[in-house]
């Protein structure tokens, strides 16, 4: 993943685990460096009549912080994740139902919203919930010397003068969510927006790989798929 990015963009190694929670319809854990988020999804399931929507499915998100009790920050994260879900999930396919999303932040070391978005996307795909496209979160900060830094650690975020989180979707490679804090110029913002798309494309490639590995491990599909002939054979079907 690192090889195809420009030299100026450094991102931490990303790893994922899919279908790890036995009780959930879909689940995923994503780790970027020391930031780790676990998402569990149930859906489409029954919803209380007071909450149901006759035209689309309701998405209920709950974010739990790594330590301590809830805070307004968790509500902000819930709102951010809900926004992306509403845009991407084809909610009209399952009216009068609910999709329940539980996000557990396991450890926080910077770029947490981007990691949450990535884990959410993988979990939604794992659950088989109809989505218009995939989405990938990219986090970028502006350091004091004006340089942009991608996928920052918590220390780098502390020392930054501006923070951006972008979410791209892969049907037209457009940005669908932008969150900025701090002071920066329009030029810096546009540069961050444009370069973050590259990182998002890499994350989409990573999603594809993750699902390839998951599907190849499923004994029911092993006979179907041709073996991977690359430099490194990851899993060989019997």
């Amino acid at each position, binding site marked *: 993943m690192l090889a195809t990015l420009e030299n100026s963009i450094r991102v931490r190694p990303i790893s994922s685990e899919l279908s790890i929670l036995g009780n959930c319809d879909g689940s995923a854990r994503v780790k970027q460096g020391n930031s780790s988020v676990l998402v569990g999804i149930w*859906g489409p399931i029954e919803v209380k009549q007071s909450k149901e929507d*006759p035209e689309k499915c309701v998405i209920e998100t709950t974010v739990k912080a790594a330590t301590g009790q809830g805070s307004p920050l968790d509500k902000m994260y819930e709102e951010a994740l809900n926004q992306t879900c509403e845009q991407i999930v084809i909610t009209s396919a399952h009216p009068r139902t609910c999709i329940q999303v539980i996000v557990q932040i396991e450890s926080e070391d910077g770029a947490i919203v981007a990691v949450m978005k990535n884990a959410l996307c993988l979990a939604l795909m794992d*659950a088989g919930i109809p989505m218009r496209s*995939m989405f990938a979160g990219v986090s970028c900060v502006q350091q004091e010397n004006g340089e942009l830094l991608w996928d920052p650690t918590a220390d780098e975020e502390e020392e930054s003068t501006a923070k951006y989180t972008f979410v791209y979707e892969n049907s037209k490679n457009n940005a669908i969510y932008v969150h900025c804090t701090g002071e920066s110029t329009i030029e810096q913002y546009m540069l961050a927006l444009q370069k973050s798309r590259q990182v998002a494309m890499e994350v989409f490639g990573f999603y594809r790989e993750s*699902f390839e590995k998951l599907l190849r491990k*499923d004994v*029911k599909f092993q006979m179907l798929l041709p073996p991977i002939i690359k430099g490194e054979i990851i899993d060989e079907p019997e």
Partner: protein
Amino acid sequence: MAETETKEIPDKPSIVVCGDTFNIPANKDLTVGPGLVFRNNAITCTKPGVIKSNDKSVWIDRNNRRYVPVLEERVVGIIIGRVMDEYRIDIGGAHVAMMSSIAFEGATQRNKPELKPGNVVFARVIAANKDVEPELACVNKKGKANGLQVLEGGHIIQCSLGLCRKLRQHKSPLTQPLLNHFKSFELCVGMNGRIWVRSDTNKHTVAISIYLKQCEHLSVSDAVMSLRHTVKALG
């Protein structure tokens, strides 16, 4: 904003993810199946999985856990209540399904089975609109049961939808070992991820249930080996 390029539907099964788009083939009429939508003059994937196509249709195969009712599918449902003339049945989907109390072969208002919460039925889905509760019936279109019935006794196990589809295949390699090992047993596989098992003795039922659950993750040969161990261990 660059558009991702569209390509032709692959001949061999291959892995796709959400957002992948394909061109509509010019030379044949294809029915677009589960996991795909027809949008903007192209076919877009809405679920990740293995894309398969034959002459008539194209669809995405993926092993999910949550059932979404589809017309004419056979499901194993559990009665959870009764509202006037209809039973409320849990089929594992988002809504509770309804079944008329006379939707059985030869049933009339005076002569019909009286079911209680906890009874299990093998029914077919006669209405599966996404906006309303699904409806079931234990008769086919001509009024005959044809295998649809109330299931007495036995044991229900829950599994993924993909395993159910594999079990329902004709002469499925997963059920052949069971025929070799057990003299008599009954299996009822619902498309909703529920399998009902009944056999002569409880031990056999347990052995079959364990075997089916293991078929989820083990290859057939490994599952058969573990079946032999289980049968031996249970005595």
